[in-house]
């Protein structure tokens, strides 16, 4: 009985980490754009769903999951660049709270528009398969998709960490986030950095969407659900903290899984919002 309970706890923990890593990537996508440009990207979930759809369409042509995934991320990122150069250019002309509000409405409008199109063209539910068989270690049943997601997400997060901490471009990004005026004086173009970061966030969202589809079916409305989750992660992690977003994603994934398993699925959703509210009450200055 005790052994069975411990086995279940281990399985739920692994499931929670799996979900948490995907949440961490989504939260990171929102955090870096808000931190750098003051734009709350409410269309991030749609980009995640787009990544899945494009990957599935390409898989039908190439027959190769890796090639399809890489190409899908590239295509969605290109689309993100178009959005940045068109819609977000309007947003960046504003400053301060006006920019935040305008960013919310523009990205929300984009999400609603794309959702409408996607519902018509892709009304079914979709998933991808990594093809990694599930395995059992010391009696703990580990899903094949969990193994893949944990490995891939860890590599991506490690690469992002090294990028932001060890490269010139990553340093320039952090400089703009911390002190835009100082960055300009150092010859760094904030507008170019915002374009780069927005494209990066879209790429991260597409990857997160594809990883998400390895564990569960997604459909057009999933985009909005993922955006809400990404927002919660970003809020809990501190909306401008990259490390915070990752830690928050992991923590929330584990909380949601255990709450769903032992209390109830609806309570799990409420728990996520409750954590976000508590975070806001404890650290409102991070959001202001």
């Amino acid at each position, binding site marked *: 009985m005790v052994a069975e309970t411990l086995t279940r706890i281990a399985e739920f923990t692994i499931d929670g980490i799996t979900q948490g890593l995907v949440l961490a990537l989504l939260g990171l996508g929102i955090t870096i754009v808000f931190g750098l440009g003051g734009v709350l990207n409410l269309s991030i979930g749609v980009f995640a769903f787009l990544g899945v759809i494009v990957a599935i369409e390409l898989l039908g042509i190439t027959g190769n999951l890796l090639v399809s995934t890489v190409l899908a991320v590239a295509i969605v990122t290109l689309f993100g660049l178009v959005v940045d150069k068109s819609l977000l250019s309007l947003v960046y002309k504003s400053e301060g709270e006006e920019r935040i509000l305008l960013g919310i409405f523009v990205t929300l409008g984009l999400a609603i528009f794309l959702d409408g199109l996607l519902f018509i063209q892709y009304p079914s*539910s979709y998933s991808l398969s990594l093809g990694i068989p599930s395995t059992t270690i010391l009696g703990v049943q580990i899903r094949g998709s969990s193994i893949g997601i944990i490995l891939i997400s860890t590599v991506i997060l490690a690469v992002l960490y090294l990028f932001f901490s060890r490269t010139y471009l990553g340093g320039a990004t952090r400089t703009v986030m911390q002190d835009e005026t100082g960055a300009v004086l150092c010859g760094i173009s904030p507008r170019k950095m915002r374009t780069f970061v927005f494209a990066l966030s879209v790429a991260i969202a597409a990857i997160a969407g594809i990883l998400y589809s390895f564990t569960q079916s997604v*459909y057009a409305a999933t985009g909005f659900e993922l955006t809400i989750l990404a927002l919660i992660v970003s809020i809990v992690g501190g909306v401008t903290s990259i490390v915070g977003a990752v830690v928050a994603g992991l923590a929330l994934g584990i909380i949601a899984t255990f709450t769903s398993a032992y209390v109830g699925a609806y309570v799990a959703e409420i728990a996520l919002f409750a954590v976000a509210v508590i975070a806001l009450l404890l650290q409102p200055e991070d959001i202001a």
Partner: protein
Amino acid sequence: MPSEMPSNGSGGNRSRRTVLKTTGVGVGAALTAGCMGGENGGDDGDGPITIGGTQPYSGPFALYANMHTAGVEFAIDEINDNGGVLGRELELEAVDTESNPSEANTAATRLIEQENAVALVGPVSSDVVLAVAPVAESQEVPMFITAGGDPEELSQDSRYTYRTVGPNAITAASLLTDLIEERGYETVAGITADYAWGHAMEDAIQDDISDDVEFHSEVAAFTESDFAPQLRNLPDEVDLLIGTSHPPGVHTIFQQALEIGMEWDLYTTATAPTTASVDLLGEDITQDYTTLTIPDMFTDQFADVADRFYEATGEPFDTTIAAGYTTTQVIAEAIEAAGSTDTADVSTEIRNIQHDGLYASPVQYTEWGEPADLELVLTGYEEGDTPWSPETDIRPVEEYRSDPIPAYEPPE
């Protein structure tokens, strides 16, 4: 500097009064326009006969809506090619309800009052059906439920609401409990969606199941997509795994149950579109996945219509498409029998109808709109050529067929 609006001049006040009057007249006209459509209960006898579609083109049941519509439109094309109904063409006027009950209620009202719909088709979710059925009953316009299965959707007084390919939860549960008894299943588990259909099914199974059968049930949110926590709380090996009580999650539950290593003799679903299930699950669908269907995919008639549909559209025929097709045939037949588009007369003829078509049993109704003597089929899948979709190498096989199930009688 003069202000734009004089603060105390009569010219400014006249202008403001004019704006207010004009606005008031405009609003009044807009409000009354909604009341000036055709008379309730039928159209004006000219032009096409309108079937109203209150379909969830967005949301978790979007696929049902698109496929059902394809069936309706195909039937309309065939009927119109054969001279129409009462010498008039049929047409479909459909609205996206977004699976939202209040949107569906508004859409149904508008289709009846402004588009003169002589029948409504399309509601899928039980919550939406519960919002649209009162409109159908009060406006006396027949309404066909695509898939909602809450027993409370119909009452003894219902005269304009009809089920089609979504049996009510009690009937569906009856099939499952008969199956359990017939096959001697001892361990049964299921995931229950936290809404009307899910709880109705769970309650019905618990009431009917034998005491010596172990029944495990976990509740998950209607929009849940990660069922692993609930599935891990179920036994690793079961005789019957019921996905029927969580229609939006049937595919994901199956995939995740396979992934976490659950084993079963049979997995049952709700009336999910069969072609979509095959597309999504691929070869995995042959691992004892079954679809609960009312259309009978194993008849020559079904194959014949499937061939014609594929020839006309290039798309595979499906049970959900068959539902739209059959419902439209029933509506047309009822209008012809009534000799008019008076919706009360049409509804009377619907209740008198016995339509032999694509279903496992003839379409016939009780006074309150419940299908009478319904036969249900559990359709499994195996590798092989299929008569209803030339592009796939997975074909349906009959896993289980119920005896005619007496219609559920709502309480007084």
